[in-house]
């Protein structure tokens, strides 16, 4: 059995363009999992309503 664990996608938390890109990426991952027989388990925070401040995200990325 093959499993994929995915969390903290936070779709909705970024700009509209970034959210669109993120959504397409996850759809590609689903396509991959479907083709390669993976079961996908979501471990929370797939969607996020709010905290879409670009400044916060840029700060987090810069300081990671």
């Amino acid at each position, binding site marked *: *059995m*093959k*499993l*994929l*664990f*995915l*969390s*903290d*996608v*936070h*779709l*909705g*938390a*970024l700009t509209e363009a970034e959210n669109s890109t*993120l*959504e397409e*990426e*996850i*759809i*590609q*991952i*689903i*396509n*991959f*999992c*479907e083709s*390669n*027989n*993976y*079961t*996908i*388990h*979501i*471990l*929370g*925070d*797939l*969607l*996020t*309503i*709010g*905290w*879409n*401040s670009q400044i*916060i995200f840029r700060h*987090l*990325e810069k300081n*990671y």
Partner: protein
Amino acid sequence: MEFPNYIPPLGKKLLNRFAEYHKTKTGGLFITGNHDYWTMDHFRNCGFDVEYEYRLLNVDSNSFFLTHGDGLSDSLFNLERPLLHRILRNPGFVKIFQTIFSGITGNHVMKSFSELTRDNRKLNTERLSKWARSTLDNNSFDYIITGHDHVPRKETFSTGSYINTGAYYLHKSAAIYNKGEVNLVRWDNDNMIFKPFSNKPDKSVLQ
């Protein structure tokens, strides 16, 4: 967040794709996090097996403890939720909130509230790492897998392994179980493959 008779449009295309995927691949879990726990039937209608706390899985000869990582109601596991999260998950609070506000207004209110209360929890990895080690020491799980603090990592102890999948939106990270073991991976969208998670370029391919 869902309201009676209102499903937010957020992620509609993605959830529709999950619904298609679940027509042929059943058993996918949706363990709610602190940002998406107000669910009613929509995730179930998309084919997910929805869980609000934690789930134990046995796969092959391995046992998994899966949860988001914000906290657990069951004091047995000694991972207390912050007070704010306990309030927001309280059925009485949810009922009152959904009585006062319509779906659209309620989501706007929660959006504003979320922006005000956004914390920088990604810097605090110690809480989950210490908890995971203690839980592995006192139980018979082979793997504990969470997200929440946004820092991808795999920590291996004599009693089991703790994996944090990290934040996909930041690191393109996830975890894969294959051939009896769990490893961190990174999605390479250009080549549509997962690669081992590393800060260095890696040409290995996982399928």
